[in-house]
């Protein structure tokens, strides 16, 4: 299982498409930095194929005023949860 990390918003960059296309059936996707914009209900549809494996970093949501606006499908993790995701994965791949 691979942890994919995405720091770009689907509202500005198309990299999310290639990230999704590169994900295997058990892989997980963590949204960080500007990527957490993708956790908004109006944006989360871009991540439809991996909604059950979609995470977002709490600190980045909080600093942007997005924590309470997150789609409920998104699993919010703090930085310890980020570390834990890297433990559980065989490797990580960062998309930008």
């Amino acid at each position, binding site marked *: 299982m691979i942890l994919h990390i995405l720091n770009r*918003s689907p*509202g*500005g960059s198309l990299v999310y498409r290639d990230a999704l296309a590169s994900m295997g059936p058990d892989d997980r996707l963590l949204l960080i*930095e*500007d990527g957490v914009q993708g956790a*908004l209900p*109006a944006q989360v549809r871009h991540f439809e194929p991996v909604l059950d494996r979609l995470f977002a970093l709490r*600190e980045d949501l909080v*600093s942007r005023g997005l924590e*309470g606006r997150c789609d409920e499908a998104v699993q919010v993790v703090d930085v310890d949860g980020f570390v834990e995701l890297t433990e559980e994965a065989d490797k990580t791949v960062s998309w930008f």
Partner: protein
Amino acid sequence: MAQSDPPGELLVILRHAPHGSSWLREGLDAALVAAAFGQSVTLLFQGEGVMALLEGQDSGALGQKGTSATLEMLGMYDIESLYVDAAALARFGLTRDDLLLAAEPLEAADTPAILAAHPQVLVF
């Protein structure tokens, strides 16, 4: 309201979200300095830049200052002509009630006129 004001001398288009990069802060700095130099400044929050207007922002995990405090100072600099990209708001599922400042929603069809009306346009 912004629409009845005479067009300003400088239009600053803010296209980046807070925290992810320094673009938003640097764009706002340019706007504030221009205003301090006596120019009349218009701001347009476009694309991901609309995130700058979201209510409830905070400092970063390492204590990085955000930009919302700066936004609240715009009035003190007489920067009162604020537009927000209506299409981007819709794309992010946001409404005017989500915003910390009253910015006038700008339809795509009205955008070219705003650019044309300002002698100087900077994009950040």
